Structures are given as C-alpha cells and as structure tokens.
C-alpha cells in the first residue's frame, strides 16, 4: 500500500519509516521548483493557510511562508504579540475562530509541548507542528535527514552525533526519532546537566567529550545553546561551555575523516560552534536552509486534503518498527 501522511504532522515519533521516506522522496522534485524562473506551482491554489506563531521564529516561519507561496496557497501570519492571544484567548478559541473563516491548514509554533497535537485533535484543518515546547520540531528533523541523504546518499548506517543542549531541544528529539527509524546510529554529546536522563533507553549512545564525538561520528548536528540556560544554572558560563564543548577547527582537525557539520540555527558563533567551522568546507548549514523549503512544500502537498482515516489506514498497514 502506498504510504500517506494523514491529516496532521505532529512529530516523527508517530511516523513510520515509510512515511518519513515518502516525505524525503516527495521533497526531491520540490527542490527544482525553487530553481524555476517562476518559482510557483498551482498545487495548493485556493487553500488558505494560517501560520500561528506563539514563539519568535525567523527561519522556520519564513521557510514555511515561502513553501506555502510557492505552492500558490494564500497565507496569513498570526503572532502571539499583537493578537487576541495577549487578551487571554485560549489556543482552541483562536483556532476555532480562524476555522470559522474557512481556513484549510494551520502551521503552529507554541511554547508548550503537545500544543500541536492538542490543536490537531480539535479542529478539522490540517495541523503542522513547527515546534512545540521541548517536544518535537518535525520539519527541522526532516530537512536534516534530507541534507544527510543528499550528502551521504543514504541514512542507514550513518553515525550522527547531536552536540549540546539535548535536554531542551525539540530538534534533537525529532532528529533522534527520524535517524533511528531510518537505521542511523545516534549519539548525543553535552554536559550531563543538558542531557535527558535515561536517553540511552532510546538506543542512543552518550558521549561525554566532544573529542569522542569527533572520533566516532560521520556528521555532527550542533545544537543551539540557548543563552538563558546559563541563568538556569545548567552551565557555569558560555566561555566555559565553548572551552569544553565548542566545535572548533582545532578539534575537528583530529577527526579520522572529514566531518559533516550541521546546525539548525540560529547559531551562537563562538559558543557552540567556531565561525571557521560554521563557514568551512564541510558545513552544510545553508544546504539545510535550502532543503527546508523543499521539505515544507512536500509536507504541505502531502497533507493537503488529508483525512484522519487515511493516516490510520497507513499505520494499520505499516510494519511496526
């Protein structure tokens, strides 16, 4: 049976390997659309999409908006500041009001884990999670997977290490699910205060030193160290963090093979990553950004008009992993 994505995209934890591959394969032809003289196809003509961002975002919101516009959808951006959310309206009320204006899809970013699923279960429109609390950021992980597949030709057997603040990172969580489902080996590396307890149980290796990670991995996905973590007492200081866990050129020089460097952005240069590494020949950070638009076009295309029954049917037919 052909894999389908269903009504919503909440996270990679609930997707089958076939569904993940479907998104990656569908993204391929969409890369070409962004290279056309007229960067637009009529696939989602007449669809109305609301980008509902309760948290600040530049890259993800712009990437979604480009994806939507290149598919000819009509888009509206709603941010928490300056909307009725500030006046105390609940998430469901906001969404129901939007739905009353006959929208088709909602892209939501929210500070609370589970917000996207909560919304998806309560409205008829398709819901796409653009990051919910510490839970998941599925489109980021999908674009990371696509970038790795572009670079290495396949995901299975790759060794990928997530470096930094795994504890607070929805990007890390989605990446771990996606990589494991496609057969990669996954490690995490960071201060123990920033690694979730019991993460080994997911089948993830824990490395305490960034030097070990560099010896072991084919690719490093360097996570953003949120500056407020220092105030939270998770790390002593940013300089200390850079000294112990910073991905620097000196450290990478000792790698047994050239390491592919990824970063979900926005970067703190000189905190988690050395500028020379971020701009170096093995950095695919800007490829990630380019692939982000293609992945989001693929997700929008696959979800448009999707019904919950389709997703359940797909899950029923799929082999459990």
């Amino acid at each position, binding site marked *: 049976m*052909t*894999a*389908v994505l269903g009504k919503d995209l909440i996270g990679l934890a609930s997707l089958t390997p076939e569904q993940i591959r479907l998104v990656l*394969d*569908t993204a*391929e*032809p*969409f890369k*070409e*659309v962004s290279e*056309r*003289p*007229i960067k*637009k*196809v*009529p*696939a989602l003509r007449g669809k109305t999409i609301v980008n509902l961002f309760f948290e600040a975002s530049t890259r993800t919101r712009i990437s979604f908006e480009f994806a939507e516009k290149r*598919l000819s959808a009509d888009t509206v951006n709603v941010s928490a500041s300056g909307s009725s959310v500030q006046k105390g309206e609940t998430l469901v009320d906001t969404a129901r009001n939007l739905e009353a204006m006959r929208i088709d899809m909602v892209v939501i970013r929210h500070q609370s884990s589970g917000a996207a699923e909560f919304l998806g279960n309560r409205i008829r429109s398709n819901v796409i999670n653009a990051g919910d609390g510490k839970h998941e950021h599925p489109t980021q992980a999908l674009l990371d997977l696509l970038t790795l597949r572009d670079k290495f030709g396949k995901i299975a057997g790759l060794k990928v290490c997530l470096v930094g603040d795994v504890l607070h990172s929805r990007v890390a969580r989605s990446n771990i699910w996606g990589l494991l489902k496609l057969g990669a080996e996954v490690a995490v590396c960071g201060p123990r205060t920033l690694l979730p307890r019991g993460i080994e149980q997911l089948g993830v290796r824990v490395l305490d030193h960034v030097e070990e990670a560099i010896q072991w991995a084919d690719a490093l996905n360097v996570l953003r160290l949120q500056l407020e973590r220092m105030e939270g007492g998770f790390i002593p200081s940013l300089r200390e963090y850079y000294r112990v866990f910073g991905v620097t050129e000196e450290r990478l020089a000792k790698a047994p093979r050239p390491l592919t460097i990824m970063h979900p952005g926005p970067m703190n240069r000189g905190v988690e990553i050395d500028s020379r590494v971020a701009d170096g020949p093995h950095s695919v950070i800007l490829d990630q950004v380019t692939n982000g638009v293609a992945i989001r076009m693929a997700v929008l*295309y*696959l979800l*448009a*008009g999707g019904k919950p029954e*389709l997703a359940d049917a797909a899950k029923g037919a799929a082999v459990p992993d």
Partner: protein
Amino acid sequence: MTRPDRSTILDARAMSRALQRMAVEVLELARGTDDLVLIGIQRRGVELAQRIAKLVEAQEGTAVPRGALDITLYRDDLETVGPKPVIGPTHIPGDLAGKHVVIVDDVLYTGRTVRAALDELADFGRPQRISLCVLIDRGGRELPIQADIVGATVKTSPGERVDVLVEELDGHDEVALIRPVHTAAAP
C-alpha cells in the same frame, strides 16, 4: 467478477515503425532541428521523447535538446485523488523563448494532461510554438485539444485502459489494450 482481457495493439516492431515515422514528422513539422526542443511528459513520455530524439539525431546528425515535464502539481484533480501522486523530476533544457517545443506523451485521452503541460510550460517561458506528439490517440477528449503527430489511433471506451510498455522501464516494447470482462456473478 471482473477479469481483464488483454490484447496487443502494437508489438515491438510496429511500435518501432511508428516511432520512426513520428521522428520524420517531427522533423518536417519543426523544419529541421534548429529550434526544436523535445519535452516528454513523465513517465513513459520521457522515454518516448528520448527515442524520437535519438532517431532525429541519427537522421540529421545534430543534437536535439530534450527535457522532462511532470505535470502533477498542475493537475486539476489533485484535490480528489486518493494518496498524493508521486512526482517525477522536471528538467527543461535552457530558455524556451523562440523555440519550437514538441510535447511527447504516450497516450492522449481526455486532454487534461496536455492542458496541465501547456500551463506548466508557460511558467518556464514563451516558446515560438508548441506542438503535440503522441504514440496513441485513444479518443475520449474532454477538452478542445488535438495532437499534431499520432503514432496510432485506437477506438476505446471509458472502462478500457491503454498500457504503453517501453523497454527501458518494462523490459519490452508493446502497446496493449486492457478490457475489463464482466462475467455474470454466481446466483
């Protein structure tokens, strides 16, 4: 109970003859190869365009630019199809302005694929002329679209299916007509 009945419309040799004649007609229509661009529609149209291009090149001794077009994102029924169709690659060789584009497809039926292809090509540029070349015209048009070059015309009814097989993808060349056979259900 439905059991399909399959009959060959063109075998490999007949298909080869048809393609050779089509290549000659393409050359006549485009008055040589100077402005000619062949664009195949995904899936089987791409292989057929490739064949015709090779035949034209063998005759004229000059390279013919060729491309591939996937029209899925321009379909007028995307909303109603079940699982979303797989999208193939699109590749347009250079600027189409001033060119004579010949669209190549395997089967011309409702004309909706060609309508989508015309819309999509318009987003790539403004060719001097666009012509349509199909291996099989099976009738049943739903839009005012006709082919300039046809390999073979077959009368079909809506329940039937025309399958074009090409060696590159299917192991051998053949055009077959698939007819559903209705047998009376057991009482």
